[in-house]
């Protein structure tokens, strides 16, 4: 199996990269551990930022300024400038391929205000923005004849004798076979790592940071892993996301007494800390959108109503929605340059798995969908250009296949229970407010588990669709990610954006 460009991950970033790599003349293959269209991108609700001025005055400069401010000095201004300047044409491109954006009375793409934005800048499709973008990208891939293979799980990256990445070792989940996919360039687009927080995360269960952990093992540098964004409004019981658009459209955040205690449109890190402090005082916290009215809620926030009813048993038209802040987006990731290339030759990255240095210490709502479209394209184009200059190479296999190692593990300890313990530990110790002592404790715990990894294992011995095995490998990947997050947090002694050091 051979292609010019191999892409790991079929979310928004991976599919955009695939479309543009193909356009650039490369043969492309996309692998995903699920089916395409199942990825985290489908959960993005609020919108995608672009200074179009369709709903009031706005400018690219204002978009840049807002993004920079939220990033707290930890982002690269040139990268932000590029992203914000490209935003209008990125939205125009999505419109041209058929994304069903919501519209204004005059037929322009509708825009709304999200937190930290000085204007109504987020283009949206009700509260299904990510879903509709992802599915339209998928349709374009079919039109272009791009091959996407489902149920293929990345195990490791293959390198030639010069250390250039030349393919990937993959588990075929359906057959249990290990496969080698050879390529002249590989793009990691496998998503973020919010699931290290387990049930304290809004994310899909697949967001386990596999690509980041595996890139690191192949020698790629990671950057700013300690910057984890906590979304202020996860549902209290299930952590399922209530979109920022609920506040953007005028929703209030209130405590048990029904009092507002914070600015609802403050950036996510500020609001999450305010809510966290209120909860620690013993208050319950709610989002209140009752005053927006049933018609408006059904027109603009249909998904929020459905989710609140289903998972919290409340109807937001008549009742308050109980919430808590939960892990939502990971700013950290594989370090890349302005060509989306990592420090490892032949290896590129985009999407949440990469760190393009545009979100810094705190991502603005509406900038993640933008990032995947703008930098997904860069990754696709640049990987394709790189591939053109390469010969097909032969991998030099050094390390043992992870599946062989796991067979020797004793399975005395239950990794599912441990996974949830870690989630709780991280929510409490490596969460919204951190202290050096708590961080050190978490690091010790993770290193301890890593040392004893051979005492865990899998009980399912089937070769066919062994999700017990896949989940265990995800667990191993998450341990590496956890270690990188805590180490980053310990090294950063001063509070910055989402990384907040308390007393």
């Amino acid at each position, binding site marked *: 199996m051979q292609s010019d460009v191999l892409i790991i991950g079929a979310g928004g970033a991976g599919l955009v990269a695939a479309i543009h790599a193909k356009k650039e003349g490369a043969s492309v293959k996309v692998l995903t551990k*699920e*089916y395409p*269209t*199942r*990825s*985290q991108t*489908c*959960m993005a609700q609020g919108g995608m930022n672009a200074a179009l001025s369709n709903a009031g005055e706005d400018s690219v400069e204002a978009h840049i300024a807002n993004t920079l401010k939220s990033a707290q000095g930890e982002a690269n201004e040139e990268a932000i400038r590029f992203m914000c300047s490209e935003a209008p044409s990125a939205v125009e491109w999505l*419109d*041209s*391929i*058929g994304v*069903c*954006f*919501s*519209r*204004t*009375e*005059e*037929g322009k793409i*509708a825009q709304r205000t999200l937190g930290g934005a000085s204007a109504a800048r987020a283009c949206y*499709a*009700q509260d*299904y923005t990510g*879903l*509709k973008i992802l*599915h*339209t990208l998928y*349709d*374009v891939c*079919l*039109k272009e004849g791009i091959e996407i293979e*489902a149920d293929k799980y990345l195990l490791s990256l293959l390198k030639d004798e010069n250390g250039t990445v030349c393919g990937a070792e993959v588990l075929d989940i*359906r057959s249990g076979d290990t496969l080698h996919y050879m390529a002249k360039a590989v793009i990691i687009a496998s998503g973020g790592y919010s699931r290290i927080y387990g049930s304290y995360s809004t994310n*899909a*269960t*697949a967001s386990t940071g596999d690509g980041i952990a595996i890139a690191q093992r192949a020698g790629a540098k990671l950057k700013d892993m300690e910057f984890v964004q906590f979304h202020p409004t996860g549902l209290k019981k*299930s952590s*399922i*996301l209530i979109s920022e658009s609920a506040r953007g459209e005028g929703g209030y955040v209130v405590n048990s007494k029904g009092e507002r205690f914070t600015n609802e449109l403050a950036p996510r890190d500020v609001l999450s800390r305010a809510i966290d402090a209120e909860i620690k005082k013993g208050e319950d916290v709610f989002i209140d959108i009752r005053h927006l009215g049933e018609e408006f809620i059904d027109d603009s926030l249909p*998904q929020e109503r*459905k*989710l609140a009813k*289903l*998972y919290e*048993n409340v109807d937001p038209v008549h009742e308050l929605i109980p919430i808590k802040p939960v892990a939502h987006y990971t700013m950290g990731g594989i370090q890349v340059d302005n060509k989306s290339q990592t420090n490892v030759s032949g290896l590129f990255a985009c999407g949440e798995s990469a760190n393009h240095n545009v979100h810094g210490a705190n991502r603005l709502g509406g900038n993640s969908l933008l990032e995947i479209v703008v930098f997904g394209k860069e990754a696709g184009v640049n990987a394709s250009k790189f591939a053109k200059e390469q010969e097909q190479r032969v991998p030099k296999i050094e390390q043992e296949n992870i599946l062989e190692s796991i067979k020797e593990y004793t399975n005395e300890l239950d990794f*599912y*229970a441990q996974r949830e313990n870690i989630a709780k530990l991280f929510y409490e110790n490596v969460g919204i407010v951190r202290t050096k002592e708590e961080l050190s404790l978490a690091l010790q715990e993770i290193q301890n588990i890593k040392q004893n990894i051979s005492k865990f294992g*899998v*009980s*399912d011995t*089937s070769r*066919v*669709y*062994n*999700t*017990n095995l896949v989940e265990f490998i995800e667990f191993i990947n998450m341990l590496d990610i956890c270690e990188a997050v805590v180490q980053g947090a310990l090294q950063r002694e001063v509070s910055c954006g989402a990384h907040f050091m308390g007393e």
Partner: protein
Amino acid sequence: MRIEIKRENGFVSYEVEAHNATLLEVLNKIKQEKDNTLTYSSSCRSSVCGSCSMRVNEVEVLACAYKVQDGDKIEALKNMRVIRDLVVDMDKSYTFNAKAKAWLSELNTGASIIHEKQHINEVQSDCILCGSCYSACPVYAVNEEFLGPFALTRVWKYVSDERENGVQEKIDTIQTNGVWDCTLCDGCTVVCPQGISSKADIEKLRVKSTMAGYSDPSFAQSFGGGFGGDFGFDGSPQF
């Protein structure tokens, strides 16, 4: 309460504690605490990714959106090969999107979609490709080449979109094993977790097809065939 799950060798009964819990929560509990070999797919757990479609008491549901009841019988989707337990091979139904050319073929650059018009294909573009409609489709059950519900809904999504200039090509593509094969039984509508009616979309595509000069081939065969195929404009036979 007790629920039964159809696994490789038939139904297996599980005693579970579930108060107002979703089926997905219960499956997770069984897998993590009782039987690590139980196999199913899931991802977003909030009804937008389409991974956890399965059948409860012979009706298609998303496990993350269904509240478990005592005595529930859980099975994989129908009309697709079961890979293991509740996981099916959906490759075939996925290929119909490409077969039906469910994409924007040719951009109409002059299109203007005003607020009211956005509702034309708003619901259709909510589709999550969970495959429940193929499982519930009696036509797909007997004709595995039938383009099927979600692919045809996707075609309608683009055909109804002002930005699409290539409507004719789309209509041409869905004549064989397409719009006329549907029995309009509405089974797909009943099970769609996103409130989409593929049956209604297929009816709209039939109208478009008729306007493009196509007609129901079974109608043409049963009547036209018997009378030599020559009917006048008013429907009276021509001799």
